[in-house]
């Protein structure tokens, strides 16, 4: 039994690691979505974390945990001026602006010699262990779970529901939005550092538009009502391609159908399966759904 479990772990360790990293990324976008802000910059923050960690190790010999922390910190630092600049935009504009930031960063990475240009960085030591990922995930998930009930979490929920009402209640809307954005960047940067030490090499195109949208899909399909949703979503959509391997050629089609079904029939995400009837009721009486 134990042997079978170990066999499973070693055969699928990369997949399990990817599930964990993707869950962290999904949580990073969850934070901003929970505060009602649609941002698509998390792939870029992931890139910042990955590149900073890998470069510090390579050139300064920084130990692994410190390099990861620096990567996450730099991502958060970048998020501050960016957030101050883009948070006068809302909805689709905000999404496009953060997306544009990601593309600008990608072009910079492509053109800078120290980041290896289009070749990217190769030979990054595979230092990340499964427990690193899952410990991080547990910590982040726990913190975010607790945050929901705390002042910050309530402020985020208030901003999401109605910015003007929130402001009139004395909530510093801009500050809380920025806090969500920076927290998301921190988590994404950390996840980027972890993932760089799984995949051996990183290149700018790993963090392009497609990645940003993928992260968003994890979170939205999983569900925004609580932090379990993004973890579910990431697990499902990372594992699905593997589980569907027998279907091979039809994998993408099936994935697309699942995505379509979830977004149409479970608008609040997978975590709300049990509340399906209540959701229907809310829709009938015309209450708008979250995200």
């Amino acid at each position, binding site marked *: 039994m134990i042997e079978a479990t170990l066999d499973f772990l070693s055969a699928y360790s990369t997949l399990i690691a*990817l599930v964990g990293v993707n869950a962290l990324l999904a949580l990073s976008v969850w934070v901003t979505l929970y505060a009602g802000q*649609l941002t698509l910059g998390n*792939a870029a923050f992931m890139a910042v974390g990955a590149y900073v960690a890998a470069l510090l190790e390579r050139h300064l010999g920084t130990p692994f945990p410190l390099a990861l922390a620096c990567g996450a910190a730099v991502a958060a630092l970048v998020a501050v001026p960016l957030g101050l*600049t*883009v948070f*006068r*935009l*809302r*909805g*689709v*504009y*905000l*999404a*496009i*602006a953060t*997306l*544009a*930031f990601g*593309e*600008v960063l*990608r*072009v910079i990475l*492509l*053109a800078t010699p120290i980041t290896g*240009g*289009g070749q990217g960085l190769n030979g990054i030591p595979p230092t990340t262990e499964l427990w690193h990922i899952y410990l991080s995930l547990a910590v982040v998930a726990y913190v975010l779970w607790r945050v929901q009930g705390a002042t910050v979490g309530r402020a985020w929920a208030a901003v999401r529901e109605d910015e003007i009402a929130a402001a009139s209640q004395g909530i510093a809307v801009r500050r809380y939005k920025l806090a969500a954005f920076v927290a998301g960047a921190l988590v994404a940067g950390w996840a980027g550092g972890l993932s760089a030490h799984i*995949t051996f090499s990183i290149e700018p*195109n*790993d963090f*392009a*538009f*497609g*990645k*940003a*949208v*993928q992260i*968003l*899909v994890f979170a*939205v*399909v999983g569900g925004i009502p609580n932090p379990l949703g993004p973890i579910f979503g990431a697990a499902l*959509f990372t594992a699905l*391609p593997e589980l569907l391997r027998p279907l091979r*050629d*039809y*994998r*993408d*089609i099936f*994935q*697309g*159908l699942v*995505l*379509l079904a979830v*977004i*149409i029939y479970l*608008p609040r995400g997978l975590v709300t399966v049990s509340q399906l009837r209540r959701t229907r009721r809310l*829709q009938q009486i*015309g209450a*708008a*759904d979250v*995200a």
Partner: protein
Amino acid sequence: MRGCPGAPRRRALRPRDTGGGCGEGARACDPPTPGQDPRHAGGTRRLVLEQLYNAIFIGSIYALFAVGFALVFSVLDILNLAHPTVFMLGAFAALFAIGTLGLPWYVAVPFAVVASGLFGIALDRIAFAPLRRRGAPPLSAMISSLAVTLIVVRLVELRYGGDFITFPSGTVPSFLIRIGDATLEGVRLAIILLAVGLMAGLTFLVRQTQLGRDIRALAENPRAARILGVDVERAIAATFFISSALGGLAGVLLGFAYNSVDSKMGLPLELRAFTVMVVGGMGSLPGAVVGAYVLGLGEVASLVYLPAELRDAFAFGLLFLVLIVRPTGLFGQRATDRA
């Protein structure tokens, strides 16, 4: 899913696209290098003229693509991420008509346009109508259109594979025109004229016809439009038909111009369409046209003056800058919080 590890990389428009009106492999024409030209001044002028011509050609393709994208956004507030798929499908419909059915190109083009338009209506029924009925937020529509993209791109790849495909030789019109010293490809000139004509036609349709009035009423306020007797579902279907027909046509024309079609050909246009819309003002149709030509000119200029790695920098730098400095774009009237 796009961007998954192992998925094919997103490509920018290929550099030869702006290399002086010379399609690779299809025809041989002298490369416009000023150094090889004995009349150097004339060569430089020729180069500039040819680059300008290319910029207008690229801008026309962007305009056809982005106008459809902007139309759906302005009417329904949806960012239709399946628009690049419609673009690709248009090109493949033409390939099917020419390669499999053996039709001449002048029949294949309308065939592809109608097929794309009908696909647009189907797209709405499948991916957007169920969400609209329950008043789901725009984010949901983005994701459902992404799901359709996944499915359709894969279906096309199952039939045609993931590589570049050329049209059967001799089936795509090809001729050269000389204006002064410059040699211009006739197909590109035809594309430019067609694009300009269609923009004018669309403007007339939206401003002057009953259908256009219905669509504008819908864009303004769907509930009020319904109360005032506008057949909202019909107006939405028309919007998707027009948007997708234009998008599909852009795909056919780009396929003809490069004599190459592939399942991922729409992707480079997706982010560019964002740029075009933001520069012109979200949801503004004249804005999208102007934005498209601005982007086309800027890209060709940056190809001439910037290193190749920075090819994409112009489009996204411009996008970011406009959002920061003037989020309403050139022709945007509504405030930044319209979302």
